[in-house]
């Protein structure tokens, strides 16, 4: 275990706060050095706060569903929260935030990942596909069609994650039998219990031979 990280004088909890205080002080000091006049005004308007916030953000380039984004994000922002809270791509769902349910599954460079376990800044330059980017215009992806046909959902909340995972499951070559599908889809929980219908949908798409 990395004992050296456990520094008793600087508890991990306070780390962010310390860095922020440092940033804020630096920004105020810089302002002070340049133009001492407006400092009072700066403090009143909480400019130091804004400057510090700007320092804390990291530039990030992403391609999401074919659209290019140039963003500034906090390093602690997950890909899931970036999608849902900042970009309003709410098709990707939060079911646990701990990598336990699969509701947040998206494709990053074609691989399925739990976007809640992925910091947005780690995906710089990557291609992200969410449920909103799966259909081609009005034409649904065959997996989406199959989910509707086989009633592979009830409440629909796990569904975007199930579908993204299902597409990847076939692409990975892990959809060769019912048993294999069940095994490789087990990271996607459906509390409504639509599992047999989901498996039927995946089998139909797999056996239908369409391009996924």
């Amino acid at each position, binding site marked *: 275990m990395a004992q050296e990280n456990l520094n008793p004088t600087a508890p991990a*909890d306070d780390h*962010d*706060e310390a860095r922020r205080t440092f940033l804020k002080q630096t920004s105020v000091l810089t302002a002070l050095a340049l133009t001492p006049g407006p400092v009072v005004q700066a403090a009143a308007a909480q400019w130091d*706060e804004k400057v*510090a*916030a700007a320092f804390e953000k990291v530039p990030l380039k992403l391609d999401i569903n074919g659209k290019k984004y140039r963003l500034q994000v*906090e390093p*602690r*922002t997950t890909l899931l*929260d970036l999608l*849902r*809270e900042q970009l*309003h*791509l*709410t*098709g*990707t*769902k*939060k*079911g*646990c*935030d*701990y990598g*336990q*349910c699969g509701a947040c599954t998206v494709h990053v460079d074609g691989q399925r990942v739990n976007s809640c376990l992925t910091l947005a800044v780690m995906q710089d330059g990557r291609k992200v596909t969410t*449920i*909103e980017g*799966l*259909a081609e215009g009005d034409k*649904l992806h065959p997996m*989406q069609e199959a*989910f*509707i046909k086989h*009633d592979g*959902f*009830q*409440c*629909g*909340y*796990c*569904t*975007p994650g199930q*579908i993204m995972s299902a597409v990847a499951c076939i692409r990975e070559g892990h959809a060769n039998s019912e048993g294999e*599908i*069940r*095994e490789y889809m*087990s*990271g*996607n*929980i*459906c*509390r*409504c*219990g*639509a*599992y*047999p*219908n*989901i*498996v039927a949908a995946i089998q139909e798409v797999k056996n239908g031979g369409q391009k996924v």
Partner: protein
Amino acid sequence: MKEQLLQDGKAVGDRMSRVDGRLKVTGAATYSAEYALPNLVHAVLVGSTIAKGRIRSIDTKAAERAPGVLAVITHVNSPKVPGFAAKQNPDEPPTIGQPLRVFYDDKIYFNDQPIAVVVADTLERARYAAGLVKTQYAAEPHQTNFEANKARGFLPTQAKRNPKSPQNDYDRGQKDGYQSAPVKLEAEYVHESEMHNPMELQSIIAHWEAPDRLTVYDKVQAVKGTQRAFAKDWALPEENVKVIATFVGGAFGNGLHNWPHETAAIIAAKVTNRPVKLVLTREQMFTMVGYRPKTWQRVAMGATRDGKLVGITHECIGQTSSYEEFTESSVQQTRMMYAAPNVSTRYRILGLDISTPIWMRGPGEATGAFALESAIDEMAHLLNLDPLEFRLRNHTDTDPEKNKPWSTKYLKECFQAGAERIGWSKRRMQPGTLREGDWLVGYGMGVGTFGANRGVAKVRAVLRADGSVLLQSATTDIGPGTGTAMVQIAADALGLSPDKIRFELGNSTFPTAPSQGGSSTVNTVGSAVLAACTELKQKLQQLGGAAFAGAAPDQLTLAGGQLGLRTNAAAKASLADLRKQNNGQDIEVTTEAKPGDARQKYSMYSFSVHFAEVRVHALTGEVRVTKMVSCADAGTIVNQKTAGSQMIGGAIGGIGMALHEGALMDDRFGRYVTKDLADYHVPVHADAPPVEVFFVNKPDTLVDPIGTKGIGEIAIIGVAPAIANAIFNATGKRVRELPITPDKLI
């Protein structure tokens, strides 16, 4: 007006795909946390770390100073919620007592009780700041251990106040009459608390659109009930509170009560004067939004040697909180399922320092069926009888509890269909004797029943200029496919193609409907859809003039943008003409439907039987459910596809109840050890076998004019005992404590 029965169904019974399917598979369906309101800010709750006592001090300074924080609200600075101070109204469902008043005072009733809410401009900042709140407590000793407190179980207040309450003690024939039987058994059954754990986290956006006008986007099963509750809390006229729940990401009962986080968000929105979004964490889903309560049961049973039940005694103690009396119908099935001359039931509740439970799918009936249907299996084994045969020998064609005829009961048809489909003939009478390699194979069955309830609802029906019909009602859809079923009913009622009909729900401004609970939505709201469509046609009939006079409503059609008559192809009135007669307006009705007096004369229940095939590993005790067959006598099946999905979902929920689910309490802290989906197992794909569904599909028009009886609950009631009984058949080991984990089998 006498209710018009649903005739001539073409759409009803069809395997129509869901009307909202496209929205759900494209990510376009909007759940409660997904409304993009301008100036929206984020709230994160801070929970107590003791289970009982008082808050001595709460230091919020660091949190307030943290970047982006707009407010930190605790009992010290929270604005007063007018309704909190008012005298409690003990008649309010669902519980007697006082729901937790968030931030009202310094008292702690359970561990992780919300004690502060932090509001910030981003979620990350709110979450960070929430970690900076420091609290000092004056802790008091807490009681969270069920076994240690069992003796304190008491008769619920509602039973004490009302001698007619079904929660009262019940004796038919001789009290404890089972004792006189030649063959007797007695056993105790226990299950741990189970969490609903819908995939959507409990979420709310609270928005004060004016100082006296509140809108909430809330994950609830009752938009009208929620509207009433918040209007009362904030001393507002009901119409000033708007509740939106267009899509609900599962609930299974936990949206049938309003919880502290909802009011915390409303308070936060008031303080910051911004729309506030609050999404619980998965851990918080275990501590403050209800659960199926831990329950202890004792069943004693007596029978003659030829397999006739002499008597059953069923006692039950269910857990509740220290501040609300939660009750459920755990002993009901014992009173009416079998033709036993002597039946005694006792129901008690036990208040502990834990938050309040709430009905979880199948609620108490599923709990009770685990004990009753396990005991039936045990008795059949003692008598050396096939458990199916034993049930048939004690079948009853009238309700022995109420002495009334059943409205309909096709349970025997279910038995037969299920036995054939599971391959019941392969079942060995001698447990532990069917083996495939290292796997022991067993078969089991369990029966379920639930009241075919029906309430009062209103539906608005509007015929628009383009010939389409819009229907609205303030019901919700937590997953069963309510909108789809309603469109099918309306299509048949109007003689109109389903794609011309739209059903809107989940909005408290729509005509009133009860909560989506107790398997009664189609019975209740479906009947109102039928009534509204009938009235709409009658209105058109009047507008259509002489050609339509005297025609019965079911002879009128709306196809092809005109009013027509089934019996006379020549009678036609164009929509444009009808509108002209209506001063150019949309033609609109709002109609109420309520149950009739057949309810007094008949006993109305849905019935189910579940068959399970299991394989138990002889060395490791691992249990695999390899096949399930679920059969239901649920009246008319409006949609075979979505109804089938409900049955499958219930069966899989029942697998969780039987094998996986149980929240374990660390009594030292009064806190659950199992607190997320890694510690608390729910069934995943790999746990879910093929589930074959059979519906009798015979209408019960005494329940409602469509003939439905309800599916959601019976889909799970009886599943857990079917699996427990199959495990006994496979191994010869009788496990009476759920969940049946491998350690209990080796």
